[in-house]
């Protein structure tokens, strides 16, 4: 296609944490890419095993048949005492545990998995498994739903909306973790080319299992009186997810991948802004999803003061946009560019990013191909180009980190935090550098600080010196020099904020990543972990069709 009339938004503007922490799901989100594919390729779903007893303990297998292959979720349901239920990564038992098996497991495979999957991090899986996960019940909602169904009643939809899910996953481990197959071993399969499709597939099946399990438990309790959960109510139940700090380092450790995600969405936005005239249908689709988005907004709550303020702003933005859309002439020239330009000064970051995501909705034909560009298949980024001169590296440094060079890195507030890995569960944590004995264990997750340190030593070297010579004298800068060379080709690879500053909010990084998964209802539980909903509104396997597979994110508001 011809060069876009509208340039991509500037990384200096997009890659601020405040903005990344305001991102919303879009057509390019990984869950929606998966549900579109499932419907397009007419995937078949089977449940060859559902062997759960009256206490809710047992095993189940759900198998997906794609045109070329099959994948199976093997689930183990447990009877967990309330006191042991914790979303934290330090938990050691869960209500249910899961793995995604490559193919269809034999009875021996399931026995092997039963000895390992319930132990999660303390067990081992193999190359036959692609992902590992676990979930806990929402204690109050689970009981409410089982009791209602057992008594022959549908649960009160308002109660369900408050929580939004019957179970929440507390980790979904993929690529190579705990013995699972490395992503690269399946990356050539078309269904896994878009990132995180393995994990999204597993979570989709978990949601189906959870609905089946709640029906099963109601039947056990109520016998012939019990009724199954109503389809429309079930659809509004997603799967919850509790996400901790582990996702934040992922974004910093995969700058090319992150760049490709951001670039895909920015390119999509730019393509739509370049649309000279919108058709009546396109305008109607946009107005329709905007109207339906209100039901997401109406069910999105948080106890976190920061998110409450952002939500208040977003609700005000929604009203402002509504009023604007009454007046705005979307039939005129470049309507979407006009809308984005208006939004930039009229509403908050939350509202601006909502508009940016929503205006992609009428344009699947124009933007959906970009999903395929979101993977990182470059394997030539590891080697450092030692011939590059010190002066050239300084140039790269200024490109990504000019903003960081002006900060006072001697100010304790600027380096107040340190990322480290705890001995306890080998999980990433964020500590207070000057209050805890963690500095010796610091992980390389502060590119801006590292760039500023390197800038000082580069400045003391001759600009013509090859960087190879510089690195022999300064091996401590090897990490950041590699990063600078990588990010020379990845303009959206670096977050343009200080990731160890005292005021930095890790939840902004979590939100950015989770928005690409397609999550909604971000509910930070502190500055460091967040609950979200996945697949809220999505069709279950038997409901998947070209009509239902895509815009399920926007349910029709209840009258």
């Amino acid at each position, binding site marked *: 296609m011809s060069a876009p009339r509208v340039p991509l938004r500037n990384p200096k503007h997009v890659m601020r944490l405040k903005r990344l922490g305001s991102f919303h799901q879009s057509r390019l989100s990984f869950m929606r890419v998966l549900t579109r594919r499932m419907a397009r390729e007419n995937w078949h779903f089977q449940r060859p095993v559902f062997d759960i007893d009256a206490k809710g303990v047992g095993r189940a297998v759900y198998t997906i048949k794609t045109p070329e292959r099959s994948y199976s979720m093997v689930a183990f349901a447990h009877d967990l005492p309330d006191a042991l239920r914790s979303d934290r990564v330090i938990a050691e038992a869960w209500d249910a545990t899961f793995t995604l098996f490559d193919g269809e497991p034999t009875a021996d495979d399931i026995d092997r998995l039963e000895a390992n999957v319930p132990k999660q991090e303390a067990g081992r899986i193999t190359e036959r498994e692609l992902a590992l996960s676990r979930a806990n019940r929402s204690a109050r909602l689970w009981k409410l739903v089982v009791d209602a169904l057992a008594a022959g009643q549908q649960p009160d939809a308002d109660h369900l909306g408050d929580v939004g899910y019957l179970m929440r996953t507390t980790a979904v481990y993929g690529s190579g*973790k705990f013995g699972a197959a490395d992503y690269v071993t399946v990356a050539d399969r078309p269904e896994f080319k878009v990132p995180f499709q393995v994990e999204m597939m597993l979570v989709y099946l978990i949601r189906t299992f959870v609905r089946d399990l709640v029906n099963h438990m109601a039947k056990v309790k109520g016998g012939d009186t019990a009724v199954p959960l109503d389809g429309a109510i079930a659809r509004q139940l997603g799967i919850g997810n509790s996400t901790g700090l582990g996702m934040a380092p992922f974004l910093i450790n995969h700058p090319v991948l992150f760049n490709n995600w951001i670039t895909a969405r920015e390119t999509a936005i730019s393509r739509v802004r370049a649309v000279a005239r919108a058709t009546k249908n396109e305008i109607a689709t946009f107005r329709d999803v905007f109207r339906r988005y209100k039901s997401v907004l109406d069910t999105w709550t948080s106890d976190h003061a920061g998110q409450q303020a952002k939500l208040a702003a977003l609700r005000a933005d929604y009203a402002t946009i509504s009023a604007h859309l009454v007046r705005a002439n979307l039939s005129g020239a470049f309507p979407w560019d006009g809308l984005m330009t208006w939004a930039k000064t009229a509403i908050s970051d939350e509202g601006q990013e909502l508009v940016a995501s929503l205006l992609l909705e009428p344009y699947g034909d124009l933007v959906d191909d970009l999903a395929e560009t979101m993977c990182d298949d470059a394997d030539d980024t590891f080697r450092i180009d030692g011939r590059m001169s010190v002066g050239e590296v300084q140039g790269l440094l200024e490109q990504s980190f000019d903003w960081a060079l002006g900060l006072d890195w001697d100010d304790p507030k600027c380096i107040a935090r340190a990322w480290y890995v705890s001995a306890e569960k080998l999980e990433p944590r964020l500590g207070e550098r000057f209050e805890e004995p963690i500095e010796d264990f610091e992980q390389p997750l502060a590119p801006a600080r590292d760039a500023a340190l390197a800038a000082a030593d580069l400045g003391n070297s001759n600009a013509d010196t090859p960087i190879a010579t510089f690195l022999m004298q300064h091996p401590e800068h090897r990490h950041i020099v590699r990063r600078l060379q990588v990010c020379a080709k990845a303009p959206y690879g670096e977050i343009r904020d200080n990731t160890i500053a005292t005021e930095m909010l890790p939840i902004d990084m979590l939100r950015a990543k989770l928005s690409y998964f397609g999550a909604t209802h971000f509910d930070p539980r502190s500055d460091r972990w967040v609950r979200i909903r996945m697949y809220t509104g999505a069709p279950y396997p038997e409901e998947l069709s070209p009509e239902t597979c895509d815009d399920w994110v926007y349910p029709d508001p209840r009258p």
Partner: protein
Amino acid sequence: MTRSLGEVDAMARKAARGAGYAWGLAEEAGSAVRWLEARGLDGCAALAATLQTVDQGLDGFSPDADWTSASGALCPVMTGAALSDQIADFETELSFGPVIAPILLVPVVAYMAMQRQQDMTLEAGSGRAVVNGGGLRTEGPFSTGACAVTIRAGGAGDGGALQVAELRTRSDVLPDIWDQLDHFATKTYAPATEASRLKGAGAGLTDND
């Protein structure tokens, strides 16, 4: 039990960091060990031997501009990184050493072969590796001790055409070697305290609701 190559890469990187390498060099260790294990070569054992040796003082094993070091022996991780950075300067042959566990240099020589689009050979003690863009042939056992190394352009032509290496997806690293690496990797983990458990991971609110 086999390990995923992701686990191998992460373990090698953490172990090198735990032994005192800068992060950028630890990344080189992870990459080299993964490359070797993917080709059925014992990269984990080579790194474990290296880390045991340099534990006496890393700086003594760092190469200078003449490919010599204060201790007399060269660290293969630092030497490999320097070679990788300076491949443009390589002419046709370079001899140096002794280098600890020299098999760790093979991934860099393979990179040189790819850049130069020709066969390259590394000889170290009884071990020999010939590499090109995708092919690899190794002969003789590679020492995990220190020995003199020669890298030369060309394949020394007598062994026939190189087989394109079939890449493995798993490593069957021995438990003992894995434990040796883990001993170093553990040094990168901060001891858990109740404060860090509460604060560092961000708990506070009940999650049983």
